[in-house]
């Protein structure tokens, strides 16, 4: 019972973050803000929802030693969680990088400086190190 309530709580929280990610994707002004919303919201919500599924699977263990295959399902779900945790932020980072290298400029409000410009603009490379 308490496991069910906890898992529902996790899944609903995940859905809220999904909604936030979707709204951010539609409403934010430029590429980087959208990547921020999509990357962070999507990662966290996927993690929460899949963890909720894993927790819900605990309900299927009624009689422990004979119901052990349920643990395999939970293990697989946790493996999915680990993969999302590793790969989703990485792909977000790679995409934001690619956007910057491709020449997409962030939207800067008047009166603010583009620090990304100072930090990231590299002097033209004549001969890259092997």
């Amino acid at each position: 019972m308490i496991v069910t309530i906890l898992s529902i709580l996790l899944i609903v929280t995940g859905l809220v973050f999904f909604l936030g990610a979707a709204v951010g994707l539609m409403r934010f002004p430029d590429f980087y803000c959208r990547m921020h919303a999509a990357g962070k919201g999507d990662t966290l919500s996927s993690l929460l929802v899949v963890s909720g599924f894993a927790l819900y699977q605990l309900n299927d263990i009624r009689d422990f030693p004979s119901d052990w295959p349920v643990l395999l399902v939970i293990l697989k779900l946790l493996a999915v969680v680990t993969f999302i945790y590793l790969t989703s932020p990485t792909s977000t980072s790679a995409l934001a990088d690619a956007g910057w290298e491709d020449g997409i400029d962030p939207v800067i409000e008047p009166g603010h400086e583009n620090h990304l410009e100072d930090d990231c603009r590299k002097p033209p490379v004549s001969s890259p190190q092997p």
Partner: protein
Amino acid sequence: MKAKIFASIAVVITGAILLYAVIDFPDFGDPGSPPNAGVPGGAPAASRYYIQNTYRDSKVPNLVTAVLADYRGYDTMFETVVILTAGISIFAILRVVRRDDDPSAPEPVASDRTIDGDHHRIIVGITCRIAAPLIQIFALYVVAHGHYSPGGGFQGGVMLGASFILLALSGSLRETLARFSERDYTRLAFVGILIYAGLGLLPMWVGRNFLDYGALSGLFMTKGEEMARSHSMLGVEIGVAITVMSIMFAMFANLSTRGRLQGGL
């Protein structure tokens, strides 16, 4: 320009022939079509036969794989040959071998707006290095489990190829080619077909039909012919996976570098 016109004519003619062939197909779900209703002359329907007899014949729970790799193994063998042909065509059309290409030349820099230092390379590179072996292990599982659950040689081969493509995308194509060179993947593409065709030829050694895996029970030291068929399906899937993996990576390497195998994405 002329080449483009000829290519367009070839494409249009091929497309017209394919469209013409589609007209002869039975309607989707047509109860009177041969696979659904049985062939004239009273023979049992093909699909009913597979559903009722696959497990008895080959002890394989996944009917799709049994039909693909055993009952219609001849078809699947030439499907694999089609993939090999696609790889060969890409090689023939795109691959450029120039004598003045210096393999130790520095890679061209795509943009001057690179993020300072190698921080982003570290993030992406390390994650992909962690992920690639896991993807490969999962792909081997998909290949080996093809006759028990969804999966098989084509899917597993695509995943294996994708893991190499991931390495080439995250690091550099040159590093990946140092590990999985053009010579390697060209050879492996043919080795996969040879595994398939060789498994098909072995039964002919003892006087049975081509691809009649049941005759291999002596080779696999199984009790009945059913398990021999099951094991042969695994062998065939491995051959398919090797070919698909090599051709996937060959396509990526040639397409992303316009056949030069240098620089790349």
